[in-house]
């Protein structure tokens, strides 16, 4: 029983009056399960007669009231400089008839959306919603909730209804629920014989389950951890349509995309979020066009790992409640976790289940609203190369950004969107900060058209910066390839600052790019040459005829034999790499040849960081959120992640 451990009995007729009272009170939007031809949906009730509490399963879960398929986040006006307005839905709502598995799913969503970084939109909806659950009477033929232990719940509802024939037993779960009963319902104390019938109803429903998993849900993670390269992923994904219907109907899938839209009068605009699905090819696509989960197998597999392993290791729950919706929605019928896990159960398992997440906890500071950017102004703009420009930005409140080297911000341009950009200046350059921007996508292209004095929005800083403490007293090798120089410049400027210099030993910078016209900050590197114990090596892959380049020519890895390096100092050397994905494998090999231990190598990885706060799901590398646990990682943390450095 719930913590209130209080039950009441209500006659069915009185229950209908109760529902009508709620509707007629005008205090709430009353949602309930209604028929939609042969299926059922949660929808607004006009009267109690529309309620179908005998339903098996609804097409979409009640998630749509907490994270709607399309949800307006911010209103803005491109013609006026008025502050953007957050569009928080404050409507009080009652949802009647939520089945136990959906209640469990909502509790899971709470863990994700109300964790250290609360989602204010979700929170408001959640706070304003009263959940009246309903014990299952008819089991959907695809459901395996019994195996998941989600066919009954003891908490997570405000009230819970159990049909015992001509009456309902109402279990009171919260004070809110109790108040609702006191105010709107005519109930009486339940007799013991009636309470016993709760179990009878539940047991008779439990007997209806035909689909069962061969292994306990606690074991899913172990089987998944042992079978990442199993051929079953390929065999099954060959039949995948890549339509993401499975994630769309899932009560525990919560990934979203954010987009801007502007009216034809080019004035009013809105930033909204909409459900996204990891089965869709462009889910991991970044501004430059790179797709990180390129193969159908990897996308198909990701969904199951997320459900059974990644989230389980992070939050402690299996993100499947056995509702069976995905099995119904998937046309080729390959999405049903019950079938997949049963197929997996014939293979090996491993106890090493947490290898796809990062074990160390990273602290993300709690910040106010998560989608409203701070106003900022472009203070300076300097062209660095034919495609990169340096922007100097100041927050309009004149406060320093308060970042650490390695962190990033979301640059927001209303009407166009947001893009994650790493910070290129050291924390000491306050209150301004600098961003090196390559013109690749919509936001960066738009940014290039803006002038000094123009306004932009900034969210952040986000992510995990470099562990500067771990570098103190050590030699440091910076390996910057291409645009990778941008985030590393923040750290280089920090350690070479007179105030900090003595805390670090020998410094070596290796910087490579494709051609001389792509090289940035050469003057700054030249300026550092007078430092003691400092080496800087620059290279280009290729120098076209007629271009001037007075440094090395060759891939960045060809610089390693050219630096003085005593292997006995390997353990006291830290190496930091940042560059395009292709670079890591080769540079890491060079560093390992120098005997630099894995835990002394740091990498900064690029992914599609959309929300910046570990919710939208786009930047995941296996079970790791790059926006929270990265973008800076210690190599030993990510080397076993199959999706990290491929």
């Amino acid at each position, binding site marked *: 029983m719930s913590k209130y451990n209080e039950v009441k009995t209500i006659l069915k007729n009185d229950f209908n009056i109760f529902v009508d009272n709620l509707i007629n009170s005008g205090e709430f939007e009353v949602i309930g399960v209604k028929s*939609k*031809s*042969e*299926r059922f*949906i949660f929808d607004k009730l006009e009267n109690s007669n529309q309620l179908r509490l005998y339903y098996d399963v609804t*097409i*979409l879960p009640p998630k*749509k009231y907490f994270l709607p*398929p*399309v949800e307006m986040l911010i209103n803005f006006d491109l013609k006026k400089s008025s502050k953007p307005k957050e569009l928080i839905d404050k409507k009080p709502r009652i949802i009647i008839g939520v089945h136990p598995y959906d209640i469990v799913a909502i509790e899971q969503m709470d863990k994700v959306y109300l964790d250290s970084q609360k989602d204010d939109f979700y929170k408001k909806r959640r706070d304003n919603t009263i959940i009246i659950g309903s014990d299952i009477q008819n089991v959907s033929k695809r459901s395996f909730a019994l195996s998941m232990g989600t066919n009954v719940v003891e908490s997570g509802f405000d009230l819970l209804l159990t049909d015992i024939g001509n009456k309902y037993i109402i279990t009171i779960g919260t004070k809110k629920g109790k108040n609702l009963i006191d105010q709107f319902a005519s109930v009486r104390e339940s007799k013991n014989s009636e309470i016993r019938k709760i179990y009878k109803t539940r047991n008779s429903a439990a007997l209806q389950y035909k689909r069962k998993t061969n292994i306990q849900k606690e074991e899913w993670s172990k089987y998944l951890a042992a079978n990442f390269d199993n051929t079953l992923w390929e065999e099954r994904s*060959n*039949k*995948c*349509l*890549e*339509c*993401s*219907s499975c994630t*769309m*109907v899932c009560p525990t899938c919560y990934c979203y995309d954010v*987009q801007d*839209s*502007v*009216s*034809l*009068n*080019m004035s009013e605009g809105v930033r909204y979020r*909409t*459900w996204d*699905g990891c089965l*869709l*090819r*462009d889910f991991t696509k970044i501004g430059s066009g790179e797709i990180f989960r390129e193969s159908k197998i990897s996308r198909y597999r990701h969904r199951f790992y997320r459900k059974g392993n990644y989230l389980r290791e992070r939050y402690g729950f299996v993100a499947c409640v056995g509702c069976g919706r995905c099995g*119904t*929605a998937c*046309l*080729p*019928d*390959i999405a049903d976790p019950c079938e997949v896990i049963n197929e997996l159960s014939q293979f090996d398992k491993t106890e090493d289940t947490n290898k796809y997440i990062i074990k160390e906890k990273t602290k993300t500071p709690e910040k106010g609203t998560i989608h409203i950017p701070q106003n900022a102004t472009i203070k300076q703009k300097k062209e660095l190369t034919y495609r990169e420009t340096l922007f100097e930005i100041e927050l309009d409140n004149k406060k320093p950004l308060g970042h650490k080297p390695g962190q990033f911000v979301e640059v927001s341009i209303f*009407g*166009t*969107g947001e893009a994650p950009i790493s910070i290129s200046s050291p924390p000491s350059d306050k209150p301004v900060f600098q961003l090196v921007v390559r013109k690749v*996508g*919509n936001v960066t*292209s*738009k940014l290039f*058209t803006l002038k000094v004095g123009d306004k932009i929005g900034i969210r952040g800083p986000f992510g995990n910066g470099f562990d500067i403490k771990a570098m103190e007293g050590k030699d440091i090798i910076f390996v910057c390839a291409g645009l990778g120089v941008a985030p590393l410049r923040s750290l280089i400027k920090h350690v070479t600052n007179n105030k900090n210099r003595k805390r670090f030993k020998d410094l070596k910078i290796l910087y490579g790019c494709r051609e001389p016209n792509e090289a940035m900050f050469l003057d700054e590197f030249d300026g550092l040459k007078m430092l003691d114990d400092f080496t800087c090596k620059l290279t280009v892959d290729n120098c076209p005829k007629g271009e001037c380049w007075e440094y090395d020519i060759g891939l960045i890895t060809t610089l390693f034999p050219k630096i003085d390096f005593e292997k006995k100092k390997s353990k006291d050397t830290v190496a930091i790499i940042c560059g395009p994905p292709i670079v890591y494998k080769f540079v890491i090999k060079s560093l390992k040849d120098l005997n630099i231990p894995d835990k002394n190598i740091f990498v900064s990885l690029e992914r599609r960081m959309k929300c910046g706060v570990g919710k939208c799901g786009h930047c995941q590398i296996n079970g790791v959120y790059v926006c929270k646990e990265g973008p800076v990682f210690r190599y030993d943390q990510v080397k076993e992640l199959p999706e990290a450095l491929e």
Partner: protein
Amino acid sequence: MKPRVAFFDFSSCEGCQLQIANLEEEILDLINLVDVVSFREVMKEHSEKYDIAIIEGSIMRPMDVERLKKIRKNAKILIALGACATIGGINKIRNQWPPHNVKREVYGDIDLEGNPYFDAFQTKAVDEVVKVDYYIHGCPINRDEFKRIITSIVLGKNPEIPTYPVCVECKKNENICLFELGKFCLGPITRAGCNAICPTNGSPCEGCRGILKKPQIECVMEILKRYELTYDEMKSRCKMYNYAKEEC
């Protein structure tokens, strides 16, 4: 300076332009945003000076090719409007037969030799003749998408056209899957962006926004088996808007 926009029609019903004419009061916002210099359905003026050319219709004759190439040369941006222009659409159904058979079927034995108006070849989509910068899909187009694409272009942003199938929007609309109702729907392989208007209203998707990617045959067979549908039925559905020779 407002961009100058001209509309052109080739083989089509001009229904997509009608969708734009049907913006009603919002058309005032449109003409505030851009200078419409040519739009046969709503004005009699015409100018050859334009930045953005919006093309409706398929390309069927040598004279169309010539005209289209001229338009491409004049325009900084060329937009294909509607299924006839973006994918060839229903005009491509006739590509199943040689052009002279089609002509004989329609016009009988009249001698059309040498008449350029009837000198039809196999139907082409606009991008089979000239480079297309942006696509506004659909039969007819979706007005909201048209507005989104035009505002994006004016804002200097690459309009985001869905690369995912109609199922995504269908699910968001909480529709009962038409396969469950025994209907064959092309939603799973058709580009979204229409907000699943047909399935939402009970009609299977006909694929007017173009097939995203042909699914693997294992997948198709699985679905046909599960819902007791035939391969021929699927093929004939695909022909409506997406006839392609190599697939037959």
